[in-house]
Every structure is written in structure tokens, then in C-alpha cells.
């Protein structure tokens, strides 16, 4: 024989250290890149939906201040919205009731559904 002689050290290196290293690297990458914490973010019917209410609008500046008395939460955008609403109210003669809510000239339409 004598064709291939490996010392104990190189045997360990080739058959144990290198495979374990490779497994550790791949496992680490998979763990780091996984979408942990995202899985439960999906909405499932019947389960609690405990996200903050959110309002999507193509042009966010089109939302006036909340009519139930308060300026929206602090921040420049909020005060800006109030300012805009006042300007609009003066300019276009928008009717507002005592609480500051805008009074619509006509009824609204639409539809409702449940699931």
C-alpha cells in the first residue's frame, strides 16, 4: 500500500473541520437571511389584526385635520394640514359645523360588505 497516508491531523481536518465549517457557514447565512418575524405579519381571517390603523393616499396632503376637535399628532405636517384647511375654508366657503367638521353638500354613496 503506501499510496495514500494521512496523518490523524489531516484526517480530522479533511473529514471533520472542513465539513463542519461549510455547514456552519451555510446554516448561518440561511438563518440570517430568513424572513423571521415576517411570517406572523400576514393577516389570517379570524386571527387578531393588531397593527396600527393606516391610511393610504396617493397625495397625503389631501387629508384635512381630524374633525373631532384635535389637530393631528404633533409634527410639522399636522400643523400644515390645519393651516391648509383654514385657507381652504376661507377660500372656497366650505361649510363647517360647530366642531369644525366639514358638512357635505350631498349624501354619500357606496357599499358595505362582510367576510
Amino acid at each position, binding site marked *: 500500500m503506501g499510496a495514500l497516508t494521512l496523518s490523524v491531523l489531516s484526517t480530522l481536518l479533511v473529514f471533520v473541520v472542513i465539513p463542519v465549517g461549510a455547514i456552519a457557514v451555510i446554516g448561518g447565512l440561511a438563518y440570517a437571511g430568513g424572513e423571521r418575524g415576517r411570517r406572523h405579519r400576514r393577516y389570517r381571517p379570524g386571527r387578531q389584526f393588531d397593527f*396600527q390603523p*393606516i391610511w*393610504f*393616499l396617493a397625495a397625503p396632503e389631501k387629508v384635512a385635520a381630524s374633525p373631532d376637535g384635535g389637530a393631528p399628532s404633533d409634527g410639522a405636517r399636522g400643523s400644515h394640514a390645519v393651516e391648509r384647511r383654514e385657507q381652504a375654508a376661507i377660500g372656497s366657503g366650505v361649510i363647517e359645523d360647530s366642531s369644525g367638521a*366639514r358638512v357635505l353638500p350631498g349624501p354619500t354613496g357606496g357599499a358595505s360588505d362582510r367576510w
Partner: protein
Amino acid sequence: MTVGETNEYAAPDGLAALDGPFTTRQLLRLDEALRVADRQTGLTFSVYMGDLEEPVRAHAEQLHKQLDGADRAVLIAVSPNQRVLEIVTGNEARKRISDRDAKLAALSMAASFAGGDLAGGVLSGLDQLATHAGRS
């Protein structure tokens, strides 16, 4: 002017949408859908997602009133906890989107929501409403 910019219901930093139930890709598609719908129809579409106070319809109409030019605005209010969906059309928008059209859109949205697909339902509802409204 991205969908991440929201009003007082969310954190003012505009990143609150990223903590919501949608992935970034879904948010981008929603943003695009809203902008296309607005541009094509000349109406103002908006989507509210969160709890609604009882009576639900009245609360949705109150939210709708907060929109600038409310009579040309269309609000889709979705409350996943109450499993309720309200579409509110303003006085002008109502002439373009009849209540029957709105009901049709609501039906298809509710079908998607029942399958757990919030983003898909909203997208298809927006698409249907914008199609019914026609071009401005």
C-alpha cells in the same frame, strides 16, 4: 408622495407602513395602483385599514369627510378585526361609480379578504372602482 406617507393615524415619520401587514413589494403595488386610479379617473382614491368605531358606516363616512374635496373622493375602509368593509363615495364620485358598481367591487374584495389576501383584495377593488369610474 409614497404610500408610506400617511396621516395622523400613523407615526409621522412615514415609515409606519413598513410595520404594517404588507410587504414592501405590496406597498409599492398599492402606491402605484392608487396613483394610476387617481390619474385615470380624476377622483381621489384612498384606503383606510384599521379598526372602525361602531356604527361602522358612520365612522367610515366621517373619515371620508376628512379628505380634501370629499365629494370627488372614494374611500375604501377595511377593518380586518371586525371583518367589515365599507366603500364610501362622495357626491360627485357617486355619479361615476354607482352603488351597484361599488357593491360589486366590495364583493370581490371581501372574497379576497376571506382568503387572507389583504393587498390583493384592495388592489382588485381599486382596479374595479377605477374601471367603473372611467376616464376623467
